[in-house]
């Protein structure tokens, strides 16, 4: 007879928990490959055009990237505490911390939006309005292609994460927390932390090429 609270294919909560976690970690490994292809493009292009990448990178503002890094680190902190609240079965702190994490995520996207606007005004959007004074214009344009693709793909992940956390907050609000039910929160947290880790690499790779 399976334990209470388990799906029918599992015998025990422990087994279900391990399977759920393994599934998420496997998905995250495929996400590493997904971003990895672009990181490979970036590595090759930077290796081929080091000076163009340096001057292109210096057109970005460290204040934007740094602020966003801090925001995401804060969001990971509140997310970790939210998972802890779920583990302890404390609903109100759980909901509050999930909402805080969502707000940090929205703040990240807002800063990113302002940054994209600045990039547009400064004629840094490839194909659209790219204008480059000085040499290596085409190579600099490659940097900005990678910058936009990587950051937009990352922003998409943040947006999906916000959606997941919103659903989790609703579930918590409806009171669907019982033994073993902290796992959906743990798994959502894994996804959120992964998105944070991606940014931890994107920040120095895009904003801090060479030295400023």
């Amino acid at each position, binding site marked *: 007879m399976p334990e209470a609270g388990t799906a029918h294919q599992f015998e025990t909560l422990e087994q279900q928990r*391990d399977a759920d*976690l*393994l599934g998420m*970690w*496997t998905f*995250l*490994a495929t*996400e*590493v*490959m997904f971003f*990895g*292809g672009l*990181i*490979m493009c970036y*590595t*090759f292009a930077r*290796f*081929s055009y080091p000076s163009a990448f340096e001057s292109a990178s210096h057109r970005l503002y*460290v204040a934007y990237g*740094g602020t966003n*890094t*801090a925001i995401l*680190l*804060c969001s*990971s*902190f509140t*997310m*970790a*505490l939210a998972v*802890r609240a779920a*583990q*302890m079965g404390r609903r109100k702190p759980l909901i509050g911390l999930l909402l805080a994490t969502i707000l940090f995520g929205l703040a990240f996207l807002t800063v990113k939006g302002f940054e994209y606007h600045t990039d547009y005004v400064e004629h840094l959007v490839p194909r659209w309005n790219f204008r480059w004074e000085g040499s290596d214009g085409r190579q600099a344009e490659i940097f900005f292609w990678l910058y936009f693709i990587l950051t937009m793909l990352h922003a998409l992940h943040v947006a999906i994460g916000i959606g997941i956390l919103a659903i989790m907050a609703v579930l918590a609000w409806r009171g669907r927390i019982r033994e073993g039910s902290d796992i959906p929160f*743990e798994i959502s*947290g*894994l996804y959120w*932390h992964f998105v*944070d*880790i991606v940014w*931890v*690499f994107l*920040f*120095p*790779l895009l*904003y*801090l090429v*060479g*030295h*400023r």
Partner: protein
Amino acid sequence: MIQPPRIYIGTFLALIALLGATIVAGYIDLGQLNLPIAMSISIAKTLLIMLFFMHVWHGSRLTWIVAGAGFFWLMMLLALAMTDYATRHWTPVTPF
């Protein structure tokens, strides 16, 4: 296993300190060392997030393997591809 809050607070403070270190290092001319130092700090941050926020520290061995596998394959991709690109000019290509 429920962790005490100090684990999370300590991890968070270390992450913010490392962010500061990344930015400071980004403004210092270290020549060829800028990239390795920036990447080392990013890896340190990643380890902190994975071990304590993502609970790998207390995770099963399977979690350790799968979490490590993603990173390992990424390193394979970068290392093998770059050994090709970085050494192409060593021998001039002669057309058939």
